[in-house]
């Protein structure tokens, strides 16, 4: 009896493994929440020229793009047993904050702010690492990608464009497997990334790295 049960369980495991291992389905569509951490944008001083050719600071500024959460969506296609290419897009509304201090005439320090709308469109390559996981439902992966960054200042009167690059790792957790209507499975995904934004509202035109976390639900076809 015990032997029979063990054999049955093994058989079930084999079947299940075939269903959850790196996507056997061809397409995956996901939507979720993306959080990107604060991006320091550098400091700038309002300098006036002295008679000797030096500088006198009228005031100092320090700028950042605040952390923000928004929505993200993606469409992926399986390229091979362990490789998936995906296109993704996101929308967030961080704040551009400029802290003012050290006024030469003693004005109170203040942080001026405005809301920026940030859109990204890009692509990633995911490399699934099934042998890393102990669970048949969990499929860890590493990702790398990049794309186009579009940031609109308050009231959309000025558009700033740039690029972003990202790399990180995450995992999918398959909640439903097997064929249901037209789908081949559904689950959730979580990942952590380092996002490098170049240009855009970056006041010095430089590139800076921020942490990012994403959680999403997906359906496979």
């Amino acid at each position, binding site marked *: 009896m015990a032997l029979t049960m063990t054999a049955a369980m093994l058989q079930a495991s084999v079947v299940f493994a075939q269903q959850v291992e790196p996507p056997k389905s061809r397409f995956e569509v996901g939507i979720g929440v993306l959080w990107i951490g604060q991006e320091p944008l550098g400091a*700038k*001083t*309002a*300098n*006036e*020229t*002295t*008679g*000797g*050719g030096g*500088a*006198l600071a*009228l*005031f100092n*500024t320090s*700028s950042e793009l605040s952390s923000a959460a928004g929505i993200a969506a993606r469409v992926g296609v399986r390229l091979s047993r362990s490789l998936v290419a995906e296109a993704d897009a996101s929308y967030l509304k961080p704040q*551009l*904050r*400029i802290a*003012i201090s050290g*006024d*030469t*005439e*003693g*004005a109170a320090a*203040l942080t*001026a*702010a*405005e809301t920026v709308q940030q859109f990204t469109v890009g692509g990633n390559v995911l490399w699934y690492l099934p042998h890393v996981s102990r669970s048949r439902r969990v499929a860890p992966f590493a990702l790398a990608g990049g794309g186009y960054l579009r940031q609109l*200042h*308050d*009231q959309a*009167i*000025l558009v700033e464009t740039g690029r972003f690059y990202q790399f990180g790792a995450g995992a999918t957790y398959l909640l439903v497997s097997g064929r249901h209507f037209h789908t081949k499975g559904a689950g959730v995904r979580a990942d952590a990334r380092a996002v490098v934004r170049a240009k855009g*509202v970056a*006041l*010095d*035109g430089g590139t800076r790295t921020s942490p990012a976390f994403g959680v999403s639900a997906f359906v496979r076809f």
Partner: protein
Amino acid sequence: MKQPLALVVAAALVLGQSSPALAYLKFGVPIQGKQVTLKWAQTPVHYLISTAVVPGVTSTDFQTTIATAFATWEAVPTASITYQLAGVTTASPGQDDGSSVLGFQSRPDLDRVLAQTSFLVDASTGALIESDIFFNAAFPWSVAAAGETGKYDLQSIALHEIGHFSGLGHSELGETELQPGGGRRVLSAEAVMFPIAFSAGSIAARTLKADDIAGISDLYPDGGFATTTGSLSGSVTKDGTPLFGAHVVAFNAATGLMVGGFTLNTQGQFSIGGLSPGAHIVRVEPLDDADVDSFFDTTMNTVDVNFRVTYFDRVVVVPKGGDSGQVAVTVVAK
């Protein structure tokens, strides 16, 4: 002469009001009840060089230095104004003869005036007919490349006066401190058009700043100026009352450049043009770093300087070829 010297513009006092148009300070004249910006209708603007000389500055030195100063304004890529030397003359500046003359004159009675620009204006159009610049020979002058201790740099002062010659008024982008014996010492300036000169020996004012460039470009815009730059406008109030004569500075948080303007009407409104598109900080300060009548005709308007330096609490975005939208700044009394 140990006192700091004011670069007084005769026209600013005589013609009075500034134009309520964009930014900085442009000279304006009332014509048929309407304020008209003072500018040259045609370029190149022809000028004559006086043969009068002073110790340490030969006629050739003078001509070369003045040409360099004119060329500095001409080199502004977003402005179209050009100048042309029409020859030398024995005539003195200040004669209303239709010719624009630059030269030395000894005016020891003007003991704080290094140089002065005067205008002859077409009373029907506001167009400039003549503009003369005299450099006060009562002071020591230098044309040395590195400047000379105790002498005023002719190129720096000429650059300032040619700004007036072209139609620009004074800028308030500078800091001064009162001297025990009266007058002010300039600590810093970020505009050649600041009304008070650096101390003798300084050559720091040979380079145009963002404020000067915005001003001359606004007066004589070249092709892309209107489409590549933007403006920032709004109003300043104190206790609910519009404030006249407040100095408003737009600081570009990306470039670090500053361009100043003033509230120029009884509604306390201001508009600063020629700004690089992008995020700006707005700082409002009282007009207390030079005599108020260096900027405005105080017989016609009362300038309120009793308020604290104030920053607008939002980042103001200047679009390309457009305006920021109205920025309402409230200041409080000191």
